[in-house]
C-alpha cells in the first residue's frame, strides 16, 4: 500500500434520500446468495474495531442450521470520545433498520435486536418510533421482521460481542470463549450476526449502489469509507466520513492545529503515532505500527506539544484497569501492574529498565488475554512507551 491517499471526503452515510422503502423492497426481491456475493465483493470489513469481513460473517450465519437466529446491531459505542453510531441512529435510523432486516432475510431470521448503550437512553423513544414505522412497512410488503431495543448496562466491556450477548441473557458482562463464534452459537446459543451500527449503514450503501461503487473507494484491503470521530487538539472536532487509506500526514494537515505532536488512532485500544511517523502511516485495516496502516474503530485524537504522553498513558491504563471485566488473569492483573509500574518508574521507585519488563508483560497480555480488551492494551502501551520513553521517566 505504497500510495498515500490524499484526504478524500465522502458523503454516503448521512446522505438521506428517503428511499429506504424502495431499496429494502427491491433488495428483498433478490437472491440471497447473490446478495452475499455482492457483500463479499464489496470487501466491506466491520467498523466496530475488529475488521472482520462482513460478507463472510453473513455467509457463515446463513449456512448455520437452526430453528432460530438473530441479528444484533451493536450500538454500545463505549469508546471515549466517539459518537458516530449515535449520529447514525439519530440521523439515518432507517438505513440501519433496513440493513438489519436484509441481513435477517439473508441468514433466515425474523428477529433483530439493537443493543443500545445505556447512556443513549434519550435516543430510545425516537428509535422506537422509527421501528414502529419500519415494522409497519414490513407488514405492508408481507415481510416478517421485528426489531427490539435492549438497553445496555453501561460497562465498556459489554460492547465486546460475546459479553454483550451474556449481558442480554441476564448474565454478567463477561466475554465468552471463542470458538464457538457468534455466527455458529451466539445470543441464546443461536447463530447470530452482530454488526456495528456503521457497518450496517455501509451495507445499505452497498445494496443501494452495488458493491463496485463501494469497492472503488479506499485502497486495497481497506475498501470504502469510514466515519471518523476527530477530537483533541484540533480546530474542527467532529464526525467526518473519509475514504480509507489516507495517510496520517494528510489527516493532520487537515485537522491538526499546526503543532500536532502525536495522534492516537483507534482510541484507548489503538496506537499512538508520533509526528516522525505521520508520513509512513496510513489509516486502514492491514498491517502493524511498524508497517504502514492502522485499523481503527474511528476515533482519532490529536495531541499538541503541550500534552504529556505520560498522562495520556496513565489515563488509558486507568481506563483499562477499571473497564476490564476482571475475569482473566493477564488483563485484570496486567492492567494493574502496568499502571502501578509506570507510576513507580515515574517516581523513581523502579528503574527505567522496568519499562522493558512491562513491555514484555504487555506481550503476554496480547498473547493470552481472553478478549480484545486485554489483548489490545499492548497497542497503546508499547506505542506510547517506545516513542515517548523519556516522558515516561522524567
Amino acid at each position, binding site marked *: 500500500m505504497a500510495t498515500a491517499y490524499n484526504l478524500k471526503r465522502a458523503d454516503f452515510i448521512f446522505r438521506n434520500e428517503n428511499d429506504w422503502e424502495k431499496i429494502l423492497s427491491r433488495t428483498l426481491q433478490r437472491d440471497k446468495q447473490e446478495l452475499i456475493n455482492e457483500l463479499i465483493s464489496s470487501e466491506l470489513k466491520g467498523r466496530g474495531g475488529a475488521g472482520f469481513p462482513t460478507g463472510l460473517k453473513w455467509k457463515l450465519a446463513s449456512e448455520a442450521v437452526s430453528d432460530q437466529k438473530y441479528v444484533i446491531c451493536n450500538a454500545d459505542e463505549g469508546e471515549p470520545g466517539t459518537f458516530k453510531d449515535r449520529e447514525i441512529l439519530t440521523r439515518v435510523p432507517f438505513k440501519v433498520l433496513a440493513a438489519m432486516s436484509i441481513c435477517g432475510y439473508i441468514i433466515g431470521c425474523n428477529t433483530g435486536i439493537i443493543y443500545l448503550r445505556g447512556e443513549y437512553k434519550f435516543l430510545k423513544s425516537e428509535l422506537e418510533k422509527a421501528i414502529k414505522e419500519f415494522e409497519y412497512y414490513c407488514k405492508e410488503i408481507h415481510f416478517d421482521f421485528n426489531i427490539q431495543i435492549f438497553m445496555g448496562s453501561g460497562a465498556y466491556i459489554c460492547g465486546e460481542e460475546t459479553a454483550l450477548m451474556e449481558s442480554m441473557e441476564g448474565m454478567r458482562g463477561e466475554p465468552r*470463549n471463542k470458538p464457538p463464534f457468534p455466527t455458529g452459537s451466539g445470543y441464546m446459543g443461536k447463530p447470530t450476526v452482530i454488526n456495528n451500527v456503521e457497518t450496517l449503514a455501509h451495507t445499505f450503501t452497498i445494496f443501494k449502489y452495488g458493491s463496485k461503487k463501494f469497492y472503488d473507494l479506499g485502497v486495497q484491503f481497506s475498501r470504502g469509507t469510514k466515519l471518523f470521530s476527530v477530537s483533541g487538539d484540533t480546530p474542527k472536532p467532529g464526525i467526518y466520513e473519509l475514504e480509507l487509506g489516507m495517510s496520517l500526514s494528510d489527516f493532520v494537515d487537515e485537522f491538526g492545529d499546526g503543532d500536532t505532536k502525536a495522534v492516537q488512532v483507534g482510541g484507548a485500544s489503538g496506537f499512538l503515532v508520533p509526528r516522525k511517523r505521520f508520513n509512513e502511516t496510513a489509516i486502514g485495516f492491514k498491517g502493524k505500527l511498524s508497517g504502514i496502516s492502522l485499523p481503527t474503530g474511528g476515533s482519532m485524537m490529536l495531541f499538541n506539544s503541550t500534552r504529556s504522553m505520560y498522562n495520556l498513558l496513565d489515563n488509558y491504563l486507568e481506563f483499562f484497569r477499571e473497564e476490564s*471485566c*476482571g475475569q482473566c488473569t493477564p488483563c485484570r*492483573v496486567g492492567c494493574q501492574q502496568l499502571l502501578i*509500574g509506570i507510576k513507580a518508574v515515574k517516581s523513581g521507585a523502579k528503574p527505567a529498565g522496568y519499562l522493558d519488563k512491562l513491555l514484555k508483560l504487555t506481550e503476554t497480555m496480547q498473547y493470552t488475554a481472553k478478549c480484545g480488551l486485554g489483548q489490545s492494551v499492548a497497542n497503546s502501551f508499547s506505542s506510547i512507551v517506545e516513542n515517548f520513553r523519556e516522558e515516561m521517566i522524567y
Partner: protein
Amino acid sequence: MNKINMTINGVVYEVEPGKTILEAARDAGIIIPTLCYHKDLCIAGNCRVCVVEIVGQNRLSASCATPCQDNMEILTNSLKVRNSRKHIIELLLSEHNADCTKCYKNGNCELQELAAEYKIMSQDLIDLVPFKNYTIDMFSPSIIKDDSKCIRCQRCVRTCAELQGVNALTVAYKGDHMKISTFFEKSLNDVVCTNCGQCVNHCPTGALIEKNYIEEVWEAISDPEKHVVVQTAPAVRVGLGEELGFEAGSRVTGKMVSALKSLGFDSVLDTDFTADLTIMEEGTELLTRLKRSLVDHDPDVKLPMATSCSPGWIKYIEHLYPEYLGHLSTCKSPQQMFGALVKTYYARSRKLNPEKIVSVSIMPCTAKKFESNRPEMHDSGYRDVDYVLTTRELAIMIKQAGIDFMKLPDKKFDRIMGESTGAAVIFGATGGVMEAALRTAYELVTGREVPFENINIMPVRGMEGVREAIIKIENPLEAWSFLDGVELRCAIAHGLVNAKKVMDELKAQKNNYHFIEFMACPGGCLGGGGQPIPTNPEIREKRAKAIYDEDEAMHIRKSHENPEIIKIYEDYLGKPLGEKSHHLLHTKYTERNRY
C-alpha cells in the same frame, strides 16, 4: 464420527472429535497446568495458565476451552508458552497474599504447586496486596472466606450455581475490584449459603476453607477431666485414606478406628449406629404417613416425605421451599441423634456425668458444623455435638500426632453405639438411605426380604442426578394389609441443583412420589464438602464402590437387625416414634428468608 489427527509437540495423535486440546493432551499423557478448570464444572477459560501455542497463530489459546481441529499443530512447552505461563503465575501471585507457611492450604494448593513447579523465586512485579482492601469472612460456623487468597477462578461460583443451584456466591464489580462476593456482600452466614462446602472442595487455593476446630479437640483430648467421645460418619472411612497415602476408593475403617484411639479419644464410636436408628424412626414415620394418607385419608398428611439427614439440604429447603418443611421427616440427622444419645443413653450406660462428656464427630461435611451449632440441638440438656471435624481435619490431626497411618493395625469400634450394619454404611452414597429404608420397611411390612438379588437394590444406585424407583408391595402382613398392591414411588436426588429439579416438579405437581431421598452433595456424603480434595467424578465413583463393598462385607446388612438397635429400643427408647424418641431424635425446622 471419524477421528481427527493432531500433532502435539511433534507427535501425531488420533483424537476423538469434540475433545478440547487439554483433554487430547491429557489422553496423550502430556500435562498442561490448569487452575480454573475442574472436571465437575463448565469451562470458564479465565485463568489462562493452560495456554498452548497453535502453530501458525500469533496468539496463544486456552487449551481447556479450545476444541481440537483436524491437522492442528500444538506446542505445549514452547518458549512463548513457558514465558507466558510463568508471567501469568507471577501475575496471580502479585495479587495474592502468598504467606504459604501460615496458610491452611499449605501443601494442598494448586497455586502453590504451580509456583513451585515454575520456580517463581523472585518477584519482579509489584506486590499489589497492600493496595487491596481484602477482607476475611469468619462469621459462618462452617466456612472461612479469605479474599486475599482468591485467584478469581470462579470455580466456587460455578460450583454453587451448577452443582448446587444455590447461587450464594457471585462475581461482583469489574476490573481491579472484581471479587467473589455474596448478596450485598453479606457474610456467608447471612445469605442463602447451605454450608455444604462444595465451594470449599472445589477451591484450588486457601480462599475458601472449612472453619477448623482441631485445636479445640486437642485441648479436650488432653483434659483429663473430660471424656471425649468421637463418632465417625460412613463416608469418612472411604475417603480418609486419600489424605494419608492410599488410592482413592480404599476402605480404611479399621485403621481409622486405630488412629482415633491413638489420638486419645476415650471412646471411638460409629455414626452408623444412629444411621440404623434413623432407618427405624424414619421408616416408621413413612409407614405412619402412608397409613394416615391411604387409610385415614387425612388431608393434612404430607407426602411425599423427604429425608432429613443432609443438613445442607435442610438449610436449602428452609431458605428456598419453606412451604414444604412439613414434608421433611422430623428425624434429626444421624450425627445429631448420636449427639443427643451420647449425653443421655451412653452417659447413663457408662455411668458418666454428661457434663464431662465432649462429643466430637468426624464428618465428610461442613454443613454438619452449622447443624451442630443450631440452637435446637440441645435436647440432651447440653450441646449435643460439641465439635464437628471434616475428613480433612481428621487427617491433619493424624499427621500432627506422628501416626504412620499405613502401618496401623485394624481395630474395632468401641461399644456401646459402635455396632453398625451394611444398611448404615451405604448412607454415605447417594441412594443409600433409600436402599437402607427399603430393606427395613419392606421386610417390616411383608415379613420378607426386599425382592432384589443379595438385597442389593440396584435401581436406586448410581450417579444419575435424579433417579426413580417403584417398589410394589405384595402380600403384606396383616397389620399392613392396606398396603397390598401399593406401588411405592421413590426418588433420589443428589447435588442441590437436582434437588431443585425435583422440588420444582413437586411444586408444579408434576411428580407424585411417596418418598424422596435428598442429599446436598453430588454423589451423596462420599462427595461431601468436607471430603479430601480433589473430589471429582472418577473419585466419587471409586468411593461409591468402596461403600458398596463395605456393605457386602458386613455381617449384618439390615438396620432392624442391628443388635444394639434392638437393645436401645428395649432398654431406653421404647419404640420408634415413642415419647423418648420424639424428644431426643426428632426435631423441627426453621423458615428462612431467601435473602
